């Protein structure tokens, strides 16, 4: 029964990937892309989805060879004990920094909209506490919360639909007018919003039906792309590219543009539901960090590790001086993410191949 705690179904895997991916990025996404590809932001969004698809397949290359081992375990098997541990340590740090920086961006936006006087550390501690509480649970609970929150977060998109009637279709014309180069540049900027699938390195051994990992991953990416597309299309349609590129948090501003019947301002409700969405990447990455650390140290106490990582996460979240710097850091983290998504699996496979062929010769 002990294994049961860390077993998830492939359906839950879909929600975990979505949970790790969609977070704070969704607020800035539309304007960031629009700065490059203007009215064709939606095309960039679709092209950007190729990154997680590529990541899914590369990660699967390595995890399918070690179906019952997590990242920390197979990197030790392939690279040897200490180099493997070093790589895992890098991953632990990456995941923890990811969680902290995401929290920081989240908190900065909250501070800007609601809490001009509340210190960052208090807000960070509050959000990280929720993330840590979830990360201290086992994978099964994490998956269930992700699943439940996905449906709760659908309310968020009901808010979007509320503003959909303001869409002006002429803002999408002329289609393709911004040029292929700009569209590709826009797609490059989406990449950071599509990070999160590297979680698969850690959780793929927990999936009950291993053959469905690829299918679940693809479904998750389709849902993510659809949600991003919805956000980008509605933002472009409501604001037009000229306004959109001058906005910071387009999705939030959309909520301020209309008055619902009883609710004078929709953005506050939006923020509540957004909290449900935005804490998930932090929690999932915190979990990935905690779980990998557990495997590396061979120290089987989720609670204590979570508590040990908490001050570290809190301090990292306080490092950026302002929102700009936090966003800058997040793009640096993004490169590491892409590394873990694309390069590390290939690298591990190569080493494995070389080792095996050498071993074969010796044998």
């Amino acid at each position, binding site marked *: 029964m002990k294994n049961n705690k860390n077993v998830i179904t492939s359906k839950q895997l879909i929600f975990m990937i979505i949970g790790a991916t969609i977070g704070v990025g969704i607020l800035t996404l539309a304007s960031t892309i629009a700065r490059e590809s203007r009215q064709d932001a939606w095309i960039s969004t679709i092209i950007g989805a190729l990154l997680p698809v590529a990541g899914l397949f590369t990660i699967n290359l390595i995890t399918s060879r070690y179906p019952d081992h997590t990242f920390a375990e197979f990197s030790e098997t392939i690279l040897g004990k200490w180099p493997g541990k070093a790589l895992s340590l890098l991953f632990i740090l990456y995941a923890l920094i990811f969680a902290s920086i995401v929290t920081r961006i989240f908190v900065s936006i909250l501070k800007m909209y609601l809490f001009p006087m*509340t210190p960052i550390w208090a807000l960070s501690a509050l959000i990280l506490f929720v993330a840590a509480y979830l990360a201290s649970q086992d994978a099964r609970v994490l998956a269930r919360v992700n699943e439940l929150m996905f449906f709760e977060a659908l309310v968020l998109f009901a808010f979007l639909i509320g503003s959909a009637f303001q869409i002006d279709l002429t803002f999408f014309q002329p289609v393709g007018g911004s040029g292929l180069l700009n569209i590709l540049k826009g797609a490059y900027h989406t990449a950071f919003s599509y990070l999160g699938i590297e979680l698969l390195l850690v959780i793929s051994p927990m999936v009950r039906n291993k053959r469905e990992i690829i299918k679940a991953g693809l479904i998750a990416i389709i849902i993510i792309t659809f949600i991003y597309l919805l956000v980008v299309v509605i933002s472009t349609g409501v604001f037009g590219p000229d306004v959109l590129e001058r906005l910071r948090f387009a999705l939030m501003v959309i909520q301020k*543009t209309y008055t619902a019947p009883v609710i004078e301002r929709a953005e506050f409700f939006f923020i509540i539901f957004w909290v449900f969405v935005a804490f998930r990447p932090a929690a999932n990455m915190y979990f990935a960090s905690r779980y990998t650390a557990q495997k590396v140290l061979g120290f089987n106490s989720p609670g204590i590790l979570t508590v040990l990582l908490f001050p570290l996460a809190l301090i990292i979240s306080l490092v950026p001086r302002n929102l700009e710097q936090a966003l800058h850091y997040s793009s640096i983290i993004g490169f590491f993410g892409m590394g873990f998504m694309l390069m590390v699996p290939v690298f591990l496979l190569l080493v494995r191949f070389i080792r095996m062929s050498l071993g074969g010769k010796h044998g």
Partner: protein
Amino acid sequence: MVKQLLMMVLLAVVLTGCWDAKDIDDLFIPFVGGYDLIENAGGKKYSLTVNFPTLSRNAKENSDVMVVEGETIAATRIDRGNKSSRGMAIGDLRVVLFGNDLARRGVHDVVDLIFRDPRFSNTILLAVTEVRTTDIITIEPHNYQTVGQNIIDLLRNSPKNSFIPRERLHLFRKDLLTEGFNPVLPVIGVHGNNKLKISGAALFKKYKMVSQISTDETAALVWLRGQESYGDVFYSFTDQEGKTRQITFEGQNSRSVKAKLVDGLPVFEINVNLEGYIAESIDTMEFAGKEENVAIAARALEEEVRRRCEALIYDLQNEHRVDAILLGRYARAKWPPLVQKQDWDEVFCKSAIKVKVNVKIESTGEVA
């Protein structure tokens, strides 16, 4: 053990908290803010006039006005900090007024603050005042606690009852920033001693107010701009029998536009649709069982609306020289270079614009 530790952290965070908690009774609730430009020998200054209800039961007046000044709009906050006994709940601001002088000089310096501060709602209604905003905001209305509520009701409800432009902050920003678009704001004036009214519309070329048009022209502007409103149209015509008929039509408008390019210049065909009923017909025309009479009344209205629209377009193209009717929307979708590389308003003045009106009279009321 672990949970307890985490709980302690949360408690520490929460119990030392309440940084941003502000009780309502420590705040002024400004519903309306007015920006003015004050020019004198020393240079230019901005002033902000806010009107807010005084909530204390012991207060003698039930509303108060505060005028603060500064080099920029945000700088007026420094002055406010000194003059005000309470904080300002900026999120509750529902209307922003621009003084006539300021609007004519250009609102560029004013709007940055409104766009930047996240506390401002984007549903804030905007208007230009005929005089300085201070003169409007210091009026003491009889039927409202504050003049602010009066202005809010005026701007909110008027577009539902007559053809008056309604510009929320979100639309204003869209019109300002999008190439080929120009904002239009309603103008608030004073009538009688201390009563407010909408006295026309202010045409803007981007940030700068170009001119003010009358209420009659404003209706035509609303029809042409395609902002869906509801209102009354009065018109008279002479029928075949030589009788003069005076009819008031009440209904809703909408528009559709066909655009094409002929010899490098745009040609627009604007379809103005009106749908409604006859509210009044002096010297009663018989409508019951007489479909042709309804048709005659509709044709006459079409003629009237077309005449007024064409007159406005002529003025726009020749006098105001600004595209206030959002034709740039089609231009930027179809011929981006015309909007991006040239001054669209100039192209607009050279464009050929045809107006087609389509009136649909749904009913003629209880009189046969």
